[in-house]
């Protein structure tokens, strides 16, 4: 037995949403009054070229049917970013140890703290 979906409460908490509606109204007004005649004249890709293959070729930096700039460096950076995000999520999800967490900086408690501090909070 599942519980019914939560009803959206139509009360005072929805009041800030008016800002979003106002933004939509403004953007709609601006977009609909724009002149895009020059844009529509020449659009679209060549009929026989494979768009997806070209995207893949651009990502790894080789030539393809639809020439475009190379995104190799961006690919590598995104790979690193995704990896970092994964590690970050793992680190956040770990429980913080209750006892023993050595502070990285102890505020100068004394000479004996140097011997124990070592590499701080990298456990």
């Amino acid at each position, binding site marked *: 037995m599942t519980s019914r979906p939560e009803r959206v409460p139509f009360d005072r*908490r*929805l009041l*800030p*949403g008016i*800002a*979003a*509606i106002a*933004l*939509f109204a403004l*953007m*709609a007004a601006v*977009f*609909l009054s*724009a002149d*895009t005649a020059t*844009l*529509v004249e*020449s*659009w*679209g*890709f060549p009929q026989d070229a494979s*768009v997806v293959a*070209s*995207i893949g070729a*651009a*990502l790894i930096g080789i030539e393809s049917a*639809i020439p*475009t*700039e190379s*995104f190799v460096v*961006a690919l590598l950076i*995104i790979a690193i*970013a*995704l990896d*970092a*995000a*994964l590690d*970050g*999520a*793992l*680190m*956040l*999800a770990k429980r913080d140890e209750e006892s023993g967490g050595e502070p990285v900086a102890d505020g100068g408690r004394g000479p004996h703290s140097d011997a124990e501090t070592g590499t701080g909070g990298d456990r």
Partner: protein
Amino acid sequence: MAVLPEYYLLLSAAVFCIGLFGVLTRRNALFFLMSVELMLNAGNINLVAFSLYYSNLTGQVFALFGMALAAAEVAVGIGIILVLYRNFGDIDVTEAVTMRW
């Protein structure tokens, strides 16, 4: 018969504002994240649309990267919500209000 660019922009603006509406009114942190995803995807729609009109693949590649980043951001966001739950006992964003005057 081509679709005029204004309608793509209008679609993108609508999706963005729906996402914004969610950010402004939702109390549950996970729904907050979902709304942020909507906003990111609105930007992607825009990129792809203009890639078609300018006959340039850069927009579509960029949209791919945007999606990847959105995924990364969600991953970190989920981690933050986890820590938020641990510290405040609830994922209601209106409950975590200690950084105030």
